[in-house]
């Protein structure tokens, strides 16, 4: 994006040097030459700053205030600068901290399961003896193409205690799955998320598998390595980068869990509360008109996600050097 890398690259590309040199003759050196690339970046930079950086800064700034009213509160509330109030409140808010714990548990269990499934699917489709690769690739990817809210609605029907076709199928066995039990409901949500996202992650891993040089695989085969051995010793290490990437995406996704539990909430019989996940908790604060508190919760969540992702990157990178 900036000037420097292009300058480094320039000597390597001999044939191209003619054009820039002619241009330098036509326009005076210095300023305009630097402005050019900046101008090309401008649309991106402006949008990036206005739509991405500014709102984040605004939310962080907003979180430093608390809402104050008096009496019956019939005049507009004032916002008082109290930088730590909202943060202290969030950390003492049992339902918010519980929601953080909930998504952490969700991430620890669901992410490895989903990525394990995605990896297994990718390896199966990639294996030499696989038939109908196109078909399986497409069908496992289709859930991702369905909007999250629609998927959650369909699943809410599958889970509903009055209409669940799953439980109706199990009826002859005298078994019912209590999808909305307090202890089960998180895993009912995890099931929807896995269903929606396993295929997406599978495609990323599968794409990485395609980049393994055929000679390497052939050499391994000639040396008598079994398909399992090739998968374990060559393919999985080769897609390590893709696995790290999908893991970080999934960690972030878990922290931001919202659509699925929010859709299931009205039919959950109270087992999904209004603060089931951190984002739902912040959303409740927004609905109640308390923007600063919602902003503080969001900032805390963002910091937590940032830290977890960073630690994860550090851990995996250390492995690289060893």
């Amino acid at each position, binding site marked *: 994006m900036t000037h420097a890398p292009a300058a480094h690259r320039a000597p390597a590309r001999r044939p191209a040097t003619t054009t820039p040199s002619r241009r330098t003759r036509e326009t005076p050196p210095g300023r305009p030459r630097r402005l050019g690339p900046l101008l090309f970046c401008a649309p991106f930079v402006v949008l990036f700053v206005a*739509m991405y950086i500014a*709102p984040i800064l605004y939310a962080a700034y907003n979180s430093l205030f608390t809402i104050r009213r008096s009496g019956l509160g019939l005049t507009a509330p004032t916002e008082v600068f109290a930088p730590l109030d909202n943060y202290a409140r969030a950390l003492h808010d049992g339902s918010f901290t519980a929601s953080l714990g909930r998504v952490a548990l969700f991430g620890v269990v669901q992410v490895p399961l989903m990525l394990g499934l995605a990896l297994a699917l990718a390896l199966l489709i990639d294996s030499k003896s696989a038939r109908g690769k196109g078909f399986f690739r497409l069908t496992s990817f289709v859930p991702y193409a369905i909007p999250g809210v629609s998927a959650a609605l369909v699943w809410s029907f599958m889970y509903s205690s009055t209409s669940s076709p799953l439980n109706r199928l199990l009826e002859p066995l005298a078994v019912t799955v209590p999808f909305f039990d307090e202890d089960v409901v998180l895993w009912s949500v995890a099931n929807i998320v896995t269903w929606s996202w396993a295929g997406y992650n599978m495609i990323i891993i599968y794409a990485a598998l395609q980049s393994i040089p055929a000679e390497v695989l052939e050499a391994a085969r000639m040396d008598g390595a079994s398909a399992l051995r090739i998968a374990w010793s060559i393919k999985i290490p080769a897609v390590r980068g893709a696995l790290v990437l999908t893991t970080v995406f999934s960690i972030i996704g878990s922290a931001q869990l919202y659509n699925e539990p929010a859709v299931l909430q009205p039919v959950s019989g109270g087992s999904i509360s209004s603060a089931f996940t951190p984002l739902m908790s912040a959303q409740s604060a927004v609905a109640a*008109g308390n923007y600063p508190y919602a902003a503080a919760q969001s*900032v805390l969540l963002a910091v937590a996600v940032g830290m977890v992702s960073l630690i994860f990157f550090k851990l995996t990178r250390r492995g690289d050097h060893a």
Partner: protein
Amino acid sequence: MKRSFIRFVGIGGALTLALAATGCTGSSSGSDSAPDQKASITFWGWAPGYEDAVKAFNASHPGIEVTYQTVQPGAKGGYQKMLNAVKAGNAPCLAQVGYETMPSFAAQGALQDVAEHAAPAKSEYQSAAWNSVTLSNAVYGAPVDTGPMALFYNKKLFDSLGLKPPTTWAEYRAAGEKIHASDPKRFISSPYQDYDYAGLAWQAGADWFGVEKDAWKVSMASAENKKVADYWQGLVDKDLISSAPMYDQAWYTGLGNGTIATVVGAVWQAGVIKGGAKEGAGQWAVAPMPQWEKGDKKVGNAGGSATAVLNGCKNTAAAWEFAHWLGTDKDAFGKLIEKASLYPAASDLLYLPQLKADPYFGGQQIYEVFAAATPDVDPEWTWGPLMTSTVTDLNDGLGKAWTGKGTIAQALSHAQDSTVAEMRKQGLAVAP
């Protein structure tokens, strides 16, 4: 799920931007116009039929030009948009606001007192509706519709079991037991949440909020509320309440196939039941709300909305003229009944020809039941200043209670505690 975070963090900024964009489209609040100039008023709402009503008003009132803009229904984002616009100083003069949200708006300084224009019209409205748009001595808008309650019941099912529509809550429980005994898949009713539940408390005079001197009083955990809560808890404990949440597909199915026998609900439930449970056509009927004491005539209310005057409105006279017209003009309201099934808050409109018998309800003149119930709606009910968070907390508890985890009384006292805590935290005066 994945992409929503950035959007969320940015919600403040993004909304501000969005509003800055919409602000340009001329939602300026009226103008101090010269006499020969038209007064222009902007009105935000979502009820179907409002747009046509505005057209009719403009045609018949050459001095005022009302611009109607459709917004998301209140709880789905409309209220937030209005509050943001007030904060940004570019709010419309008028907005559709539910009665339950009026005090929350007032407590955010989002409403404007128009008592000087409005006071003479007081007698034209039912007293419960009028009370809903006033707080202390201020009048914040004009009532449009109300939601007096009654008992919707599956007459075919009741007849087949030799049951009469219950007149007391004791009879209602007995009917529930008989219905459940006839088939364990049949239930007398289904779980009531937030404002539907509030209507049950309203009937019993079990106030949730009040204003005492200059402080708010919160009484969701009062003895009267406990009485109502314990009654419904008793029905839950005897397994007489279906698990199908209201407005869920399972609920409509139950209403249609006779496994959910009654709905204690507001007048607009007629449209909800008719629209969602087509198979129930001809089976349903309406009776007055069961009473706590035999012979009493007490009625609750659920829902209803006003045309509120938002803070910053400059031409309050013109704003009031339209708001008053919308809720009281016979022709306009007749169309609103047809289009949006609104039920009038103005006493003169209770017998409009558009409120007619319906074959879905076996040809019964159901609106006569509601018209008779309307004067008996307790006018003393007051909503609180933080209704959104109050009902969010309440629903968390009620959801569990209706499925047998925890009790309704606990849900109410939890909502009471967290509401009071939040009010104190924001600095509102709370009476002990």
